[in-house]
């Protein structure tokens, strides 16, 4: 049997999912089930004066109306934020607003009825009297001392300040030939998972068991926090994430509705389901990005970069959700990028605003930091009149310098940045592109731009030791159980929780590869706290690098035991047998072998007569594992755009990506991950933005207004890989889920600015809509562009 690792196998889960036979939370129907609708604040900031639910309660089918005060009483503690060391202001966040609503969409009351339509109708009958308060909607204004306060009990809107600088940063700037400065804006993005959030809870009164089905990326954490906050004995709560249709980070947080439906199911003694509308996905599911950074870079005339200062203002929104506060810190460790300057400084100022909370969104902090850096590297190249590829190459950490401690103190495990850049330049035909660009500039008409972005990631979230350096007092381990059934079929449980990544296939390939069984004979179970070991879910490109590595180690235990049973039967030493193609054979004597299924039968129900005396029965292993370090994927992306100076439209001509995620288990799935990631990065660069007006009203909370790209807007991606396995885990796999997003936005923006650089354009804020591009040209040329 060829090794299963490295095979382009089609996803096992797809026939189910694409024929409509998946089971999502909203598909689940339970006897006596009720439906909940949340009444949400139409104001960005308002005191809740009075709530009159009388008419709603009298409406047909209505079972209950609950408001903030009652939900607060039900909670032992507020909704948790994972990173709130003492210097982080962490005001309480209750499932429904108590006294004050702090963003448009903040839940104020919940209506429960026999039918979804009855609940929706009744929600319109609830009269909420608000006293509007001044709102701090804009990030930069909210940071000022005189801004309206999002949380009245706090001194200001500054969630925290994080300052880091190496000792000689000022000298680096003082001694530089050149200093460039850029100002980079990260707009607010809406993650827009295809499946909106949903939660359903059932309470079995006589056993005390509570089951919560939720569209979560991490059921085990959700279980612990819902149990703790609602004072449910943890052993009685089971959380199930059935099929989940995308998350991109927006389903990491423990959401108000998880607590609300669980509380209501227990209060009412009937199952309670809540399903978000698409509009609620915009209003009340965490957003991504939104920040502004000023970057200064000091360099010698020859292109050697001496140091970098980043001043990053980050929008937290109204409340600290799970990863809200920590997201910029995930960018901190990668903020020097793949480069080797020694002097580095970064200041993060995190700010509360009267908007929906931001949180992890595909890349979480790393796309922001990479964008700030890669835009500035291009500005430096322009200032030095050097090729942007040459500036990057000159400053890369070299491949013989790993493990490499970067100036933030993080230890980068492995890398070969120069090869990735060279491969990308070669695949793109860089020199020819530059010639074509020059030719087009002379001809007039549409302009060509070439954008490069080199990135690193810190994936495999996350090692306790490395996290402690940024005051994260936790341990993000994962776990796996492998059970070989009596018939030799294999059931494995992972603590990771897939919501589109293809774990059922990738993990089955690891099992098949190690045990010599068919992929079809492996069932991969996940997303259910009631079966399998505890794990911490899927985000931060951690599933393979942490949970997959745990699985690999459990498989080694299974193999050891299987070898001992086989050796006993074949009357040889366990070291002298090998596993291959469903059999275990004596090395060098393939005819002396025993079927793997026979070993399984012997271990499960076999008689002692043919079994090693000192061996326990069963063929099952569980491994809990925590990595020593992050893994550090990297790559270089090159985007080629055509810009129409007449109307400002940008068309992506080509997109070349060279990514290195170490060992790739399934190249087909890896391609899919990179394609999706690039699409989301392009989306940020060209299309997507949710704008809040100065009063805090979100403008355009539907897919008619918010431009998620579709296939016609995207080019055929040209994907290439280099393979530098990580020494951090035994699989050598680094993680590939976020790479595309991190690489793409700066590559696209660099390309568009490159296309227009001869006209004097230096900066355009994302998204690069036709109007923004056209205006940038007008401003640079004072309207003198040929129409």
């Amino acid at each position, binding site marked *: 049997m060829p090794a299963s690792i490295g095979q382009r196998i089609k996803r096992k889960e797809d026939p189910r999912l694409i024929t409509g036979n998946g089971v999502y939370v909203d598909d689940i129907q339970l006897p006596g089930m009720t439906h909940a609708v949340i009444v949400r604040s139409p104001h960005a900031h308002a005191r809740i004066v009075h709530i009159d639910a009388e008419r709603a309660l009298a409406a047909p089918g209505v079972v209950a109306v609950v408001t903030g005060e009652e939900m607060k009483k039900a909670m032992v503690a507020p909704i948790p934020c994972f990173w709130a060391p003492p210097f982080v202001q962490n005001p309480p966040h209750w499932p429904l607003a108590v006294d004050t609503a702090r963003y448009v969409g903040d839940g104020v009351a919940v209506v429960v009825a026999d039918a*979804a*339509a009855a609940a*929706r*109708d009744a929600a*319109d009958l609830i009269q909420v009297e608000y006293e509007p308060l001044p709102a701090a909607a804009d990030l930069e204004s909210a940071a000022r001392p005189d801004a309206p306060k999002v949380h009245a009990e706090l001194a200001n809107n500054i969630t925290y300040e994080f300052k880091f600088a190496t000792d000689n940063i000022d000298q680096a700037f003082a001694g530089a030939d050149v200093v460039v400065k850029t100002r980079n804006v990260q707009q607010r993005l809406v993650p827009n998972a295809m499946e909106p959030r949903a939660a359903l809870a059932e309470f079995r009164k006589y056993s005390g068991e509570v089951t919560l089905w939720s569209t979560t990326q991490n059921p085990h954490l959700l279980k612990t926090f819902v149990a703790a906050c609602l004072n449910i004995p943890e052993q009685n709560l089971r959380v199930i994430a059935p099929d989940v249709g995308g998350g991109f980070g927006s389903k990491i947080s423990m959401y108000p509705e998880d607590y609300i439906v669980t509380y209501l199911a227990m209060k009412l003694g009937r199952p309670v389901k809540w399903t978000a*509308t*698409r*509009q609620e996905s915009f209003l009340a599911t965490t957003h991504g990005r939104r920040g502004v950074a000023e970057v200064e870079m000091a360099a010698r005339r020859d292109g050697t970069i001496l140091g970098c200062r980043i001043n990053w203002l980050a929008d937290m929104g109204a409340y600290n959700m799970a990863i809200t506060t920590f997201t910029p810190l995930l960018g901190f460790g990668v903020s020097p990028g793949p480069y080797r300057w020694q002097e580095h400084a970064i200041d993060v100022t995190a700010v509360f605003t009267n908007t929906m909370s931001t949180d992890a969104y595909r890349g979480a902090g790393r796309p922001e930091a990479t964008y700030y850096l890669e835009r500035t590297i291009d500005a430096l190249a322009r200032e030095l009149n050097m090729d942007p590829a040459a500036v990057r190459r000159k400053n890369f950490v070299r491949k013989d310098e790993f493990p490499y401690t970067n100036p933030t103190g993080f230890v980068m495990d492995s890398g070969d940045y120069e090869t990735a850049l060279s491969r990308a330049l070669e695949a793109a035909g860089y020199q020819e592109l530059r010639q074509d660009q020059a030719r087009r500039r002379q001809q007039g008409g549409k302009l060509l731009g070439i954008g490069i972005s080199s990135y690193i990631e810190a994936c495999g979230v996350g090692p306790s030791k490395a996290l402690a350096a940024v005051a994260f007092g936790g341990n993000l381990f994962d776990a796996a159980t492998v059970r070989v059934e009596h018939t030799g079929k294999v059931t494995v449980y992972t603590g990771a929780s897939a919501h589109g990544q293809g774990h059922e296939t990738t993990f089955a390939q690891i099992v098949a590869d190690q045990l010599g069984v068919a992929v079809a004979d492996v069932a991969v179970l996940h997303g259910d706290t009631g079966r399998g070991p505890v794990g911490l879910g899927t985000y931060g490109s951690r599933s393979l690098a942490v949970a997959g590595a745990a699985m690999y180690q459990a498989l080694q235990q299974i193999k050891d035991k299987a070898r001992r049973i086989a050796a006993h039967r074949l009357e040889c030493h366990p070291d002298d047998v090998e596993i291959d193609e469903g059999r275990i054979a004596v090395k060098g004597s393939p005819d002396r072998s025993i079927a793997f299924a026979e070993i399984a039968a012997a271990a499960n129900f076999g008689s002692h007569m043919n079994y090693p005396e000192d061996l326990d029965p069963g063929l099952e292993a569980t491994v809990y594992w925590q990595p020593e370090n992050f893994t550090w994927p990297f790559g270089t992306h090159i985007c080629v755009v055509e810009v129409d100076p*007449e*109307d400002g*439209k940008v068309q992506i001509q080509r997109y070349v990506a060279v990514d290195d995620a170490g060992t790739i288990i399934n190249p087909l799935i890896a391609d899919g991950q990179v394609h999706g990631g690039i699409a989301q990065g392009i989306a940020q660069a*060209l*299309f997507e933005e949710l*704008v809040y*007006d100065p009063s805090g009203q979100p*403008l*355009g909370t*539907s*897919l*008619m*207004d*918010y*431009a*998620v*790209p*579709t296939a016609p*807007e995207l080019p055929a991606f040209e994907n290439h890989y280099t393979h530098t396995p990580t020494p951090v885990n035994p699989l050598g796999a680094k993680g590939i889920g976020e790479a595309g997003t991190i690489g793409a936005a700066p590559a696209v923006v660099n390309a568009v600015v490159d296309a227009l650089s001869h006209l004097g354009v230096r900066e355009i804020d994302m998204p690069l*809509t*036709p*109007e923004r591009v*056209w*205006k940038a040209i007008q401003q640079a040329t004072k309207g003198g562009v040929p*129409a």
Partner: protein
Amino acid sequence: MIPAAFAYHCPTSLQEALQLLAAHPDDARVLAGGHSLLPAMKLRLAQPATVIDISRLTDLAYIREEGDELVIGALATHRQIEASDLVRRWAAGLQECAATIGDPQVRNRGTIGGGLAHADPAADYPGILLALDAQFILQGSGGQRLVRAANFFRGPFTTALAAGELLTEVRIPRPAPMSGSAYVKLARRASDFALVGAGAYVALAGGTFAAVRIGITGAAAAPFRAGQMETALQGASASAEAVAAAAARAAAGVEMMGDATVSADYRGHVTGVYARRALDAALRRAQGG
């Protein structure tokens, strides 16, 4: 995404539909393909007490020649228009326009009559139908009247339709020999609605423009004819240079819309760009290109 309660009627004849419309003059909305009305109802932005679903009036889904006119029933879908050889022969610009609306799902459900009666200021059809000098039949229970496209659109979501009237047919005059039409648009990425859409019709006589009509949609509160650009080209020699020179006046005298995402300045600028591109394309067709 659950609409508020409403009374639902599904007439099986035009007469029955008109009677229902007359019986609910203030609170009824007509449902055809549903691609504008239903999303608004699901968001509860529209909460009509009565919905009159005319989708069973399938005899209004025709496209045919009648004498010197191409006539299109109100329930013809965008997809039907996009796929019609007859439409392509009469007015390539109309076919082009239908093909740019939304996506295949939308085009398979949405109807020309529904789109026109809804009168979204960013809808595509008005741009080309103004250029083609189309007329619409507005049918009431007491009779029908014929209204030119130029007199039909009054403002955002506002038309010449009176209470109790249904738009039943679009009539397009036979194009002159040596004529051509075209529709081009700059789409808003999210919705595919026109940020600016330009429809053009030209007829040539010798080497000069005998007729030039340009309809602009998406740029102003209501679609409009680019009157000053038309005047500048009337009788001029038919060339791309003449078109380019006149295009600067495409938006002259019309107040451009500005909103949170697109400024009036930019709309004014691209109105000229797209008017020129549409006219260039129509000219090439007229010249047999």
